[in-house]
């Protein structure tokens, strides 16, 4: 690798990282505004015009608050917990193709940090280790509510990972690749995967809601039963890390849903008006972010509309409904592909 490439990749990594943080920061503001809208309130409107500085104020508050580490807790693991949660949340952005590529001075600059040939499996790997942040933090707090929250989180995430993986298997069968970039590139124009696999998309989205611990699957931090769930004992910026990691996960999940099923950076009919590849790349990225914001809105809309599941209902839904349906979906995809002559 040349020095130019290394510098370019480093700049891209910093961009992806800061955009994830910025989007997560303003997701907290958006969540409060949307909740207010759905409940016929005003929402935050004191800090700056329309309360636009509210996330900054919240961040400063988080940093300034007293940090309490319980005496009976396991101190090292108590600190490692939120760090792992934040670290794994920030790791997933690198394999997502944020756009096609820019051509500057005859050189090609792809808008993706790295195109691993097993990109989807990398995403799964990072998601599956994300649960350690919650488990370690919950256990190290030495509090029964935290422990129950951590145990709920881990069993929920393992259960829904299975259905999520199976819903992806059907997609991989159809696209024939594990590289996220190729999957995005195949959906050029209107050939979005959601049109071919609406059911797989639905399964994947349900599982994505469960993996990010968002309502109606937010059992790990169920206030009515567990005080605050796995982060009951946390305060100050450590609590902030846990909450922030959830918003980054939501952003990345939205990006993954948009890439795998809703065409990624592809914009239908754009080729009729714009011919310059650089402008097409930039417009594609903008359109991709519009899709991501729509899915973030969907996450929030669902949260403030649907009530929470009961824990046994959650497990029944995962093991007895979603996994058999996902298996059937894989088999049905195989049969249809065989009948249409795509496989022999």
């Amino acid at each position: 690798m040349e020095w130019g490439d290394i510098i370019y990749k480093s700049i891209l990594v910093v961009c992806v990282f800061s955009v994830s943080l910025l989007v997560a920061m303003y997701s907290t503001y958006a969540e409060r505004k949307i909740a207010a809208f759905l409940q016929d309130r005003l929402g935050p409107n004191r800090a700056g015009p329309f309360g636009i500085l509210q996330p900054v104020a919240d961040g400063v508050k988080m940093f300034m608050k007293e940090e309490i580490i319980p005496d009976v807790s396991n101190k090292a693991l108590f600190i490692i917990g939120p760090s792992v949660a934040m670290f794994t949340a920030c790791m997933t952005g690198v394999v997502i193709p944020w756009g096609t590529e820019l051509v500057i001075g005859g050189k090609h600059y792809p808008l993706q940090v790295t195109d691993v040939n097993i990109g989807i499996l990398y995403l799964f790997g990072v998601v599956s280790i994300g649960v350690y942040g919650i488990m370690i933090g919950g256990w190290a707090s030495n509090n029964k509510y935290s422990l129950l929250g951590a145990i709920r989180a881990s069993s929920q995430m393992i259960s829904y990972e299975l259905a999520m993986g199976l819903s992806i298997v059907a997609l991989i069968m159809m696209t024939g690749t594990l590289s996220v970039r190729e999957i995005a590139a195949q959906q050029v124009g209107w050939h979005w995967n959601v049109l071919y696999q609406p059911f797989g998309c639905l399964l994947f989205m349900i599982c994505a809601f469960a993996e990010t611990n968002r309502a109606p699957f937010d059992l790990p931090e169920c206030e009515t039963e567990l005080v605050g769930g796995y982060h009951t004992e946390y305060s100050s910026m450590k609590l902030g890390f846990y909450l922030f990691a959830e918003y980054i996960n939501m952003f990345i999940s939205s990006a993954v849903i948009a890439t795998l099923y809703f065409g990624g950076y592809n914009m239908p009919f754009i080729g009729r008006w714009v011919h310059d590849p650089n402008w097409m790349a930039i417009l594609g990225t903008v359109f991709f972010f519009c899709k991501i914001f729509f899915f973030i809105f969907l996450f929030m809309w669902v949260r403030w509309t649907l009530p929470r599941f009961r824990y046994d209902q959650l497990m029944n839904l995962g093991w007895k409904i979603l996994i058999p349906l996902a298996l059937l979906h894989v088999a049905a995809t195989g049969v249809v592909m065989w009948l249409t002559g795509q496989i022999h």
Partner: protein
Amino acid sequence: MTVYLFYLLSFIAILSALMVVFSRNPVYSVLYLIVTFFAIAGHYVLLNAQFLAAVHVIVYAGAIMVLFLYVIMMLNLNTYNEMQKANWLRFGAVVSGCLLMVVLVGSLKGAETMQPGAVHDANIGLVSNLGNVLFKEFLLPFEVSSLLFLAAMTGAVMLGKKSIRS
């Protein structure tokens, strides 16, 4: 560069594997085992077997170790001191450990005469090649092992049931 990475990963793997054994707290042991798995996944990446590395992380670090941690967190929640083991148990542990040592040394004895780097194709670890090999050359062993997994799964479900209606 690759050599330095190899030594770094090996150092991490061996150190954390030792810590698995020497940690007093079982939760620490599990966490060190996870670190070991990550170091081994790094070795797979160095050998250009990204698929194996990803699956290794997903299955071992992501699923199996979560279950280990899950069980160990529930164990001994109230006891802080380790129970004293009986003398005959310690003696048995020493004997079986020595036997394992003999087996390991015996299996590694001829290792220095083996030819390293006998792999013909450096891309053998990539997904498409791996799939071709598994589903063409080794189809029968592959299917037999999947049947074994199915049997083990069914067995676990049956054992986990509290009462079976006869």
